[in-house]
């Protein structure tokens, strides 16, 4: 069982109640335990047909011919569609930010293929067996090309997408380290340069992707889809298909895990939906595991180099980070992960930080979110701190104590200008250390080493932005609608969605407490876009924080309504009314007690007995907009033993000390943390999605892609700090934390165990062969950890990462600059289109930039005849000055926009 809880005072949170804060049994479990859940493959509709895909066998090339004749003749096949057959439908592959991609992406391959597994043809047949038979009979002729597979390939290879200059999908920060920062790094007593390589991960929800779609006449489209939010899918689809006039209903009752993969539909689901529009019968596609491992979007595959300067006391002086992520050919998130830099030093007293961050296109399957997409920041920071501690000769715990932001240090601002008010990583660490005797462990470690056994202790601390709302279009508040039915039972409809999160349980706990009814009498519904309001569902550790706040507010509104009516009926004051266990009591008048059902029957059915102005019925709703960011904090420790004969790692102990504010249900909280920690163990020791040099995936079954099993995961011990946040109810998000902090905790433990042999390169996963290479002091893993061989034949000229900003020698020409320009700025949330109007007068520049949100005027200068320099001040999302540096060459304009702490964004455009 778990360790005792160590709750502190509950401050301004809602604290514990009869149900809130209790380990209440989950409402979802009885149906799931008895096989009565409803997952997408459990849906069958009359007249429904089944789909399968013919997928690309090569990573890159031109499609010369698609021959479908033989496949079409298989009995039971109804139709075979290629992109050509569905091209007349609008079907945009929008990003999670709802932005259109800045490279061509189509549901089915359009003349070219860009990764192995890319869907080329869709087969509609009587059943899945026949559809697969036919899919294998579709013949595709290709003109094969050399693929760009790795990050290194991306930097030097031909562009993945025709018409682009290079493989950089998104870039921010500065290519050159700022001189002042460079000087600080160079002059520091200790400068550590640390590189981390993170492998590619398959999110691997146990339920693969799938969709059942039916077009009901021309007015309605109904979808059953395994997803993280039916509301987001409906919104995404409406924009993607441009069908605002069609009622789109999305239903997803039970979902077998999402972890970031199922935020919104992608190529396959969209192809099936368009095919259903065209073919006119209900269609089902259920991804099999082979398809999921080869064709579903994946995550991570990042490399980062962090330079960190320390003084002689181990205090931080300055740092620089250079990050790259392989986002494949058709990513759901065509981004460069700015959050890595926003949070890398957020919990530490870091005076100066600079960065360069890039997302790279390659000929691999696209990038999608996975629990804590920015987790590299905690991995690289917490591992470099241990390396620094070893090198400077300080205890790894001490180096954290000297640099962590404590409660006493707050309010304060991070080096990336994020305000901190109540983060508690330092306090979580102290709580952890009170529970784990480090000195005793060190003695045990020393004794074991004498026996040739290598034990290690890993410690890590972190903070995490949770419950974010308002920063990007899809991240909104949450809606709670609650009613006391005429029967006296409570039903609530939430904008939340559970893929195992247990929101039907935790929200019911809140309503039961706030309304004074039994937990058994509350039912929470979700999972249907036709009821409840918009929310992105499970994304960004948000539901407990935001929906919890909404449930509290809506519950309180409804309780007030019950009290008003009860007071009126009893001719008592509202203050005298108390609701308990479904009974409405009047203080001092026990004879006037009524059941909630009696009150409800009057509220709905006897309008004459209601107070003046009282809206009949007992219903309330509230959309809660939380503070922009609510931080969760944690510190973890784990103890491992590394077998120096085999390189196998055994985890002996693991302690999680976390602060999720008010825990609505500690079992649900611990379940979220434990699941994330298990995924962290998978990332450190087991899981790896890699490709050969032709871009063929090397893991196509769960025999090759190894998920953590019960034998790989220890029993976790939990400590809870429970410092209420400033959001209503005081909750802090807990969905992603385990996957973020678990990774460096385990890496540090392994590195500590093997410290006598030297540093362990952080090149995940740390397989036995890689650890034996450290232990034996020789390379047993080649070629993956061998130094990169020099490129003998450069296929393409080296692509310059730098946007062209230097003045071209073209002569100044006012006519070229003056006028209107169509321009696209590549921002962290997707490309932003705008019109630029320029007027020149000698070297003076004036004009305005206009976008959908409005227009803003500026003045600036023209240098060297064609170099435009001007500034714009903006207030949202933060007060920053945008510094534009653009170069005009003929009808083209290009350059960059410096966006304060967000670094630089690329701009391209042409004359209108």
């Amino acid at each position: 069982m778990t360790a005792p809880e160590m709750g502190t005072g509950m401050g301004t949170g809602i604290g514990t109640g009869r149900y809130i804060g209790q380990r209440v049994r989950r409402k979802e479990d009885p149906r799931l335990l008895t096989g009565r859940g409803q997952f997408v493959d459990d849906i069958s509709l009359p007249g429904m047909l089944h789909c399968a895909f013919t997928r690309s066998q090569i990573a890159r090339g031109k499609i010369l011919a698609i021959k479908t004749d033989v496949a079409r003749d298989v009995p039971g096949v109804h139709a075979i569609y290629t992109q050509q057959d569905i091209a007349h439908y609008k079907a945009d592959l929008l990003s999670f930010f709802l932005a259109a991609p800045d490279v061509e992406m189509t549901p089915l391959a359009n003349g070219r293929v860009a990764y192995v597994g890319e869907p080329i043809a869709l087969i509609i047949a009587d059943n899945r067996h026949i559809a697969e038979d036919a899919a294998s009979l579709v013949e595709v002729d290709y003109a094969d090309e050399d693929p760009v597979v790795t990050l290194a390939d991306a930097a030097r290879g031909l562009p993945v997408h025709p018409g682009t200059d290079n493989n950089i999908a998104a870039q921010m920060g500065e290519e050159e380290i700022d001189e002042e920062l460079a000087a600080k790094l160079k002059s520091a007593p200790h400068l550590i340069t640390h590189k981390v390589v993170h492998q590619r991960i398959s999110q691997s929800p146990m339920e693969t992707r799938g969709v059942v779609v039916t077009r009901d006449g021309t007015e309605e489209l109904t979808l059953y889809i395994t997803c993280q939010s039916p509301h987001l899918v409906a919104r995404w689809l409406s924009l993607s298909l441009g069908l605002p006039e069609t009622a789109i209903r999305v239903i997803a009752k039970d979902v077998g895990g999402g972890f970031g993969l199922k935020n919104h539909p992608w190529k396959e689901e969209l192809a099936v939906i368009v095919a259903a529009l065209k073919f006119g019968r209900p269609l089902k596609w259920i991804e099999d595991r082979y398809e999921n491992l080869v064709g579903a979007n994946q995550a991570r595959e990042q490399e980062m180099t962090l330079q960190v300067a320390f003084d002689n006391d181990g205090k931080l002086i300055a740092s620089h980070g250079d990050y790259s992520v392989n986002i494949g050919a058709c990513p759901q998130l065509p981004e460069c992960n700015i959050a890595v830099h926003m949070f890398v030093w957020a919990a530490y007293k870091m005076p100066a930080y600079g960065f360069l961050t890039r997302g790279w296109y390659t000929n691999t399957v696209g990038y999608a979110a996975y629990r804590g997409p920015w987790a590299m920041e905690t991995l690289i920071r917490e591992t470099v701190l241990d390396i620094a501690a070893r090198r400077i000769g300080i205890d790894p715990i001490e180096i954290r104590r000297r640099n962590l932001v404590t409660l006493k240090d707050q309010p304060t601002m991070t080096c990336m200008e994020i305000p901190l008010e109540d983060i508690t990583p330092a306090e979580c660490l102290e709580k952890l250390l009170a529970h784990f005797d480090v000195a005793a462990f060190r003695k045990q470690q020393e004794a074991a080493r004498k026996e040739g056994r290598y034990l290690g202790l890993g410690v890590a601390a972190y903070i995490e932005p949770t419950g974010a709302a308002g920063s990007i279009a899809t991240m909104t508040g949450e809606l709670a609608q609650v009613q006391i039915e005429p029967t006296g039972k409570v039903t609530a409809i939430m904008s939340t969605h559970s893929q195992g999160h247990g929101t039907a349980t935790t929200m019911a706990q809140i309503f039961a407490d706030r309304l004074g009814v039994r937990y058994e009498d509350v039912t929470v519904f979700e999972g249907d876009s036709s009821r409840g309001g918009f929310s992105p569902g499970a994304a960004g550790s948000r539901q407990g924080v935001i929906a919890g706040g909404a449930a509290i507010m809506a519950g309180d509104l409804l309780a007030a309504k019950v009290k008003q009516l009860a007071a009126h009926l009893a001719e008592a004051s509202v203050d005298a009314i108390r609701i308990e266990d479904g009974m409405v009591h009047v203080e001092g008048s026990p004879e006037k007690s009524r059941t909630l059902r009696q009150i409800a029957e009057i509220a709905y059915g006897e309008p004459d007995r209601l107070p003046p102005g009282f809206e009949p019925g007992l219903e309330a709703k509230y959309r809660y907009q939380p503070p922009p960011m609510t931080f969760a904090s944690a510190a973890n420790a784990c103890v491992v033993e590394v077998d120096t004969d085999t390189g196998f790692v055994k985890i002996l102990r693991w302690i999680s000390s976390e602060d999720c504010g008010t825990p609505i249900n500690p079992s649900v909280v611990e379940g979220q943390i434990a699941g994330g920690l298990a995924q962290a163990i998978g990332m450190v020791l087991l899981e790896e999605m890699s490709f050969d040099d032709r871009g063929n995936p090397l893991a196509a079954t769960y025999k090759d892609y190894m998920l953590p099993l019960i034998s790989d995961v220890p029993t976790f011990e939990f400590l809870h700090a429970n410092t209420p946040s400033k959001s209503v109810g005081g909750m802090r998000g807990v969905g992603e934390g385990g996957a973020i902090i678990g990774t460096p905790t385990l890496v540090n433990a392994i590195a500590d165990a093997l410290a006598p042999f030297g540093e362990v390169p952080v090149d995940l996963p740390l397989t036995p062969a890689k650890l034996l290479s450290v232990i034996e002091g020789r390379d047993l893993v080649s070629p993956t950890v061998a130094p990169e061989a020099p490129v003998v034949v450069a296929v393409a000229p080296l692509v310059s990462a730098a946007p062209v900003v230097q003045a071209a020698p073209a002569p100044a020409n006012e006519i070229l600059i003056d006028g209107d320009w169509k321009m696209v700025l590549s921002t962290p949330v997707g490309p932003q289109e705008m019109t630029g109007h320029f007027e020149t007068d000698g070297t003076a520049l004036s004009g305005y930039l206009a976008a959908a949100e409005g227009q803003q005027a500026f003045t600036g200068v023209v240098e060297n005849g064609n170099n435009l320099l001007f500034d714009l001040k903006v207030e949202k999302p933060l007060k920053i000055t945008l510094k534009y540096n653009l170069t005009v060459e003929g009808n083209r304009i290009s350059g960059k926009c410096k966006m304060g702490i967000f670094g630089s964004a690329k701009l391209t455009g042409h004359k209108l």
Partner: protein
Amino acid sequence: MSKHHIEMTINGRRHSGDVEARVSLSDFLRDDAGYTGVHVGCEHGVCGACTVIVDGKAVRSCLMLAVQAEGAQVTTVEGLAASDGTLHPVQQVLLEEHGLQCGFCTPGFVMTLAALTDGDAKPSEQQLVSALSGNVCRCTGYQGIRRAAKRLACNEAGENS
């Protein structure tokens, strides 16, 4: 493709059907017999979500053909609870120990544990955990599942024999 007539007893009820030889038992149980509690997670025998009990033994129904189950007694997760709704001890313990989150892998864990703790069997905790290493759960980190296995090994298995 030729079809084969098969008959089997599923959760105490006779069921017959005509299937192609290539149809897996899992597909037959789901699509033909309607027992959608049989979940197909990998279709290659690794994840264990499709585990059912055939003639007293836990089997992966994705690796068994429907025709191989001709004449067999098959129990799926739908057939474990009593007719009055009382949960099977394995289901009850998993409920109490928060042994599941999304619930997709759950039928496989339930059936594996049910097969091993059936009748007079008194497996040790180690035996149960060892058997469960053939089932994958992506959500829970196995914490509640391990607690459930511990309780089933120490107490409940004996009481329910």
